[in-house]
């Protein structure tokens, strides 16, 4: 992944705490994402990774703490200002979350078409140019999400996320449920997407091989908080028992 040239902070999470009905999920979450940086968040299922992402994109409101995007705290930000700020983000959800009543091309250009009032023809051209970058066949544009494979759906979701060239990309388990070949293809797409957009990325994943491919920095969420952080190289050498468990359970060869 590209080195960090500029140290401008694009996302800063400070003292974040989140609970549901008194059940504490996250506490004392602090991290910064710099411009041009790719951050991977790892952790066991149910450790609160997706909850953290939903706090960052404003779908959940933290009990405590601040979340700054481009130095603007989105917690308690007025609705319209928050909506405008979130337009700067490109997001893929864990299961793609493609609109199943819309064709793939309509999914890809959804945000841009509504914002810029593009004609159908221009929107189609834009969708075509994006899927070409991601190595998808033009034929899938006129199909519905249910008519293409899971791997293709993930790629269409990435295409939707990068449409409009957002500077911050957020991916929630982009390779989950995919075979290793498609998974590594998705990793390449993320790397390409981040490079293409020239921005920063946060990727939530369980896949250690994927972390090593795409990340500049890694944080581990364990026991409701960030229990470890470092680079992928440091991660491979880490004596942290949880990190070792993760690496050995997903890809033992990485540890050798």
């Amino acid at each position, binding site marked *: 992944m590209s080195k960090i040239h500029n140290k401008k902070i694009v996302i800063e999470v400070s003292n974040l705490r989140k609970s549901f009905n008194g059940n504490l999920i996250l506490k004392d979450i602090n991290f910064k994402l710099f411009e041009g940086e790719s951050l991977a968040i790892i952790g066991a299922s149910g450790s609160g990774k997706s909850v953290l992402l939903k706090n960052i994109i404003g779908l959940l409101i933290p009990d405590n703490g601040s979340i700054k995007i481009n130095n603007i705290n989105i917690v308690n930000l007025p609705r319209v200002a928050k*909506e405008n700020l*979130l337009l700067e*983000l490109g997001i893929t*959800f864990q*299961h793609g979350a*493609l609109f199943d009543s819309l064709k793939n091309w309509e999914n890809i250009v*959804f945000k841009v078409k509504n914002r810029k009032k593009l004609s159908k023809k221009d929107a189609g051209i834009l969708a075509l140019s994006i899927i070409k970058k991601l190595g998808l066949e033009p034929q899938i544009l006129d199909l519905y999400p249910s008519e293409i494979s899971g791997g293709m759906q993930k790629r269409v979701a990435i295409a939707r996320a990068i449409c409009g060239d957002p500077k911050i990309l957020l991916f929630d388990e982009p390779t989950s449920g995919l075979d290793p070949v498609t998974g590594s293809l998705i990793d390449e797409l993320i790397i390409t997407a981040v490079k293409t957009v020239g921005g920063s990325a946060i990727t939530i994943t369980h896949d250690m091989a994927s972390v090593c491919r795409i990340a500049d920095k890694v944080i581990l969420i364990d026991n409701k908080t960030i229990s470890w952080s470092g680079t992928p190289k440091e991660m491979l050498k880490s004596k942290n028992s949880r990190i070792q468990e993760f690496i050995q359970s997903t890809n033992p060869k990485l540890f050798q």
Partner: protein
Amino acid sequence: MTSFILNFWGSIGRKCLNFISLLGHFFLFFVQVISWIFRPPWYFKRILLQILDIGYFSLPVVGLTTFFSGMVLALQTYNGFTDFNNETTVARVVLTSITRELGPVLTGLMVAGRIGAKMAAEIATMKVTEQIDALGTLGTRPMQYLIAPKVIAAVICIPFLVMIGNTIGILGGYIIAIYKLNFNPNIYLYATVEYLQWIDIVQGFVKAAIFGLIISMVSCYFGYNASKGAEGVGYATTASVVISSIMILTSTYIITALFFG
């Protein structure tokens, strides 16, 4: 024994609190949706598609239901009112029953079953598959884009469906009266027109518009608040049909009492 009584009342209390909480949530949802209906942008294409779905595609089911109800009503009235079995009595009972109650209520219940279930399932599926979350992150407000068009279309369409259903229901009664009971068509038609009152039509329209609001709001509410995957979608669909139907039957009494009480 004491603990049993405490548990018993405690469980009733919890259910009451849950019910009040549900009412509060629904009221807030209702106010939010209404406020979004009056704020731009308006998604006219989506409203038109919903009008087509709710209005046009509900016509067969509404037509069949009211047609057979009108036929049954004519037959039963004839059998039940043997001492007064003349054209005017049957025509008047069919007309009044259809325009005041059966037309709006049967249309409301049919639309609740067909459209309410569809709305709830569609929105609930979008909710549990994170499509609604995705919509919010793509610069589109889910209430404005998904729910407001459905509510607008339902409130516009159902009064027209009721009007068509009423006409078909009266026609059903006419066919039975003329071809089975051998009534004089001129007298029957004259009686139908003579007893037709504006207040019946207005009341039917008001009921239908309120039923449209009830069906769309209840269905969208349960869909929008669905959770727990496929089970949640099933619950939202069932709850939307059951609650809409109960509210239709309750509100029809209240509206009737207000107009004719």
